[in-house]
């Protein structure tokens, strides 16, 4: 049996959130990934974000494709429905699920093989359509489950574990998400939970296509010297443009920072993002400037992280399609079936 349920027992004094859940209620089964895998840190960050947002776990749907990253939804939010679909096709399944019930929160979990290679098309088109989701790429630059082949996000010139150099140009998922029209774009690092958790929370609150590229080193196949996705490399080259505090409307806002160093943005749902600027001239509302900045800093060998772009007034696919408020999966005969009289009129028009 390769499935290990986590024991439900926990310390009676574990803190609870507003719904009375402990963070244990947001966990899933025991991870079967390698010890030290960056992906497990991301799962933990998702658990923490959902716990702190007081989300009812069953109102979240978690969808994934195939690969190490796509296995992780088993390891968080055990009370949520999950869907481990086919390789590279999570975005279409998530799009369909979202159309059926607009009231749930959709987490799409994917990897660099799943989203940058086989699923590049579906990644692009789900972002283009503005599907209301959090699209997380757990990006390690390598195929883990099949034992160490380069993925399409591996940097040109980087080396695999056997010392072979990657000669293909790399795909930068964040630049693509910006190009395709994502209304929330961020990059983070699995080793920086303080940065990742608020970004996840803000992405969940965002009404539209939120994309998160999380560099997540593969301890088994891509954590060596010569890799640009290793813990050491990312720590050395991580350049955050800002630090984010995520605040729900229920909390009072206290601004006690130097003027010009903090920007406060309110999203559609009323949630407040407090951005502490690190790169002083970085404007998170300027898509084109963000794309230029990423290209420039990327060429200089930096891994730019933080909230990179935000359109707080974004719309989502349901808005574009002008669909009814009520979830489709709750519509009944009276709302869906025109009946026999309409059909007779239809017949009459064909005689």
């Amino acid at each position, binding site marked *: 049996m390769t499935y290990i349920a986590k024991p439900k027992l926990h310390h009676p004094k574990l803190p609870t959130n507003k719904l009375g859940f402990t963070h244990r209620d947001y966990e899933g089964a025991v991870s079967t990934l390698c010890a030290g895998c960056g992906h497990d840190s991301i799962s933990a960050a998702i658990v923490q974000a959902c716990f702190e947002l007081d989300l009812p776990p069953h109102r979240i749907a978690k969808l994934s494709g195939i690969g190490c990253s796509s296995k992780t939804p088993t390891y968080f939010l055990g009370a949520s429905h999950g869907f*481990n679909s086919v390789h590279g096709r999570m975005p279409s399944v998530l799009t369909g*699920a979202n159309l059926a019930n607009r009231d749930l929160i959709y987490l799409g979990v994917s990897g660099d093989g799943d989203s940058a290679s086989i699923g590049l098309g*579906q990644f692009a088109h789900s972002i283009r359509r503005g599907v209301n989701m959090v699209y997380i790429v757990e990006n390690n630059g390598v195929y883990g489950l099949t034992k160490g082949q380069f993925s399409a996000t591996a940097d040109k010139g980087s080396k695999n574990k056997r010392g072979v150099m990657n000669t293909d140009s790399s795909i930068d998922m964040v630049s693509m998400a910006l190009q395709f029209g994502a209304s929330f774009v961020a990059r983070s690092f699995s080793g920086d939970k303080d940065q990742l958790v608020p970004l996840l929370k803000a992405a969940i609150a965002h009404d539209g296509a939120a994309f998160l590229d999380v560099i997540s080193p593969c301890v088994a196949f891509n954590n060596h010297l010569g890799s640009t996705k290793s813990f050491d490399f990312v720590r050395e080259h991580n350049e955050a443009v800002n630090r984010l505090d995520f605040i729900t409307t229920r909390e009072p806002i206290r601004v006690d920072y130097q003027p010009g160093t903090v920007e406060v943005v309110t999203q559609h749902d009323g949630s407040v993002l407090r951005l502490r600027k690190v790169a002083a001239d970085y404007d998170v509302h300027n898509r084109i400037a963000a794309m230029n900045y990423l290209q420039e800093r990327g060429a200089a060998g930096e891994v730019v992280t933080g909230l990179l772009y935000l359109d707080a007034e974004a719309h989502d696919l349901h808005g574009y399609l002008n669909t009814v408020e009520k979830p489709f999966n709750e519509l009944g005969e009276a*709302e*869906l079936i*025109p009946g026999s009289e309409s059909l007779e009129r239809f017949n009459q028009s064909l*005689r």
Partner: protein
Amino acid sequence: MPKPIAAVNDFVVKFANVNGSGSASANQLFAKAILRMGVPVASRNIFPSNIQGLPTWFEVRISEAGHLGRRGGVDLMVAMNPQTWDQDVKSVEPGGYLFYDSTKPMPLARFRDDIQIIGMPLTEICNRQYTDARQRQLFKNIIYIGALSALLDMDMAAIETLIGEQFKGKDKLIQPNLQALHMGRDYALAHLSCPLGISVRRSDAVGDRIYLEGNSAAALGALYGGATVCAWYPITPSSSLAEAFARHCRRYRVDAATGRNRFAIIQAEDELASIGMVIGAAWNGARAFTATSGPGISLMQEFLGLAYFAEIPAVIFDVQRGGPSTGMPTRTQQADILSCAYASHGDTKHVLLFPEDPRECFEMGALAFDLADRLQTPIFVMLDLDIGMNEWLCEPLRWDEARRMDRGKVMTAADLEAGKEFGRYLDVDGDGIPYRTYPGTHPARGAFFTRGTTKNRHARYSEEGADYVDNMQRLLKKFDTAKTLVPKPVARPAKQPTGHGVLYFGSTTPAMHEALDALEAQGIHLDGLRLRGFPFGQEVLDFVASHEQVFVVEQNRDAQLRTLLLSEAGFDAAKLTPVLHYDGTPITERFISHAIAERLRALNVTPLRKTI
């Protein structure tokens, strides 16, 4: 010189045109006018994969007896395309008629002396009357319809009414069209010998039947079936199904109070995404479908295996065209039977429905959603280009007001709260169908993980052989249950007991029925059985068992339905004789009659003793 063909309300007219010349609407006007005269017609558009400039044909079979399949042969050729002149002239039956534009003289050698030639200087008339090039082209079509009205003794009032209906709202177009119509008619009456030996006479044989395309009917079926999500990728001949769904939705599914839509239609980036969205939506409790054709089915294979194995409802309308590969995109075939029945790698089997006409496209279109939810599996509605893209005369569509959607086995929050045992792949009722829950149903119970990997009865990942076999066996049991749920075959017994039978399905039906009549007239009796679904039920097994020889008529090269019968029911291969038509044109009565009569004759021949 054979005698000119003489027939009233029983002949075939074929129009040879250039596509993009506006002929289609004029030709449809001709077909509809005959319907309005109370005489059944079957019309078929034979068109190229092209927008402008290539040959296109429109075949109208006029049959008071109500034969709606293709007969074969042409009695009157309206030859408007110089590119295809030779083949068009050749296709006319001896004693038949050729109507052509005689503006430019044609060498005698390019005619035939065993047919009646009717020349009319259409271009000359048009050029005299109109100065605008587009008008010259468009009105030429109406002028020849006017001429045909005289040649075939048609009811002018019917045509005039139709023109009025067609241009309703664009009233200033009515008069010029009527004028062109009369110009053609008047010329024919003055210069040609009217009527011909073939003519149309007002009758009362149409009744309350309607005239519509299968794609539109199937889309309306989906709407009545409660579909809310349609994800599709444009591909001939299925695009008009998704477009019809959009049209029907705009009419019937916009919330009057808010102006908001109770539907979502996504034109996806490809067929993989289309079926992915359908599966995602159905997993989450909406009714969802895609419309596609053979190449799309090929692209969807992996996802179809997921839907089979993870047990997610999905409805796929496959409007079949000529394969393999890009094949004949604008021609008809029934050649996706096996790629649908066994779609995807590994051991899979899928439910197929075979509508015979647009009415059944509507009925099966709605039924497919009940079956998909009930069986929690993909359901394929197997149209083809002939049914999908041609207007067919069929019985009116009916809807039972008392009918309710069958959402299948879905455990509710109340069920879970009451403590009902939930195991996603647990066969509690013995029919192989487990219960499912929609995401978000209950705070603590009923959540499960959907996956394409092996799992145990409680949806937990498992690589145990016993769990795998248990699951695969239950899927087989579920497929047995499907046998009792798909529409039963329809028998058409011979007038006298016979050891010969014939199996057929889909768009073959009208030509098949006419062939059965024709064969009977020759003293050849066959019991017919029209298949309406797969898996095959007991009736099919009994039918084959009770006949010595069974013909299987289908429109593909490899006898795919026969293969399915052999593999699923274990019949003796020698007992099932294939009758195959696959040149991309719809099968004809003459082809079937001839093929069956020939084979029976061959079977009756005493075999020669083998020489050693």
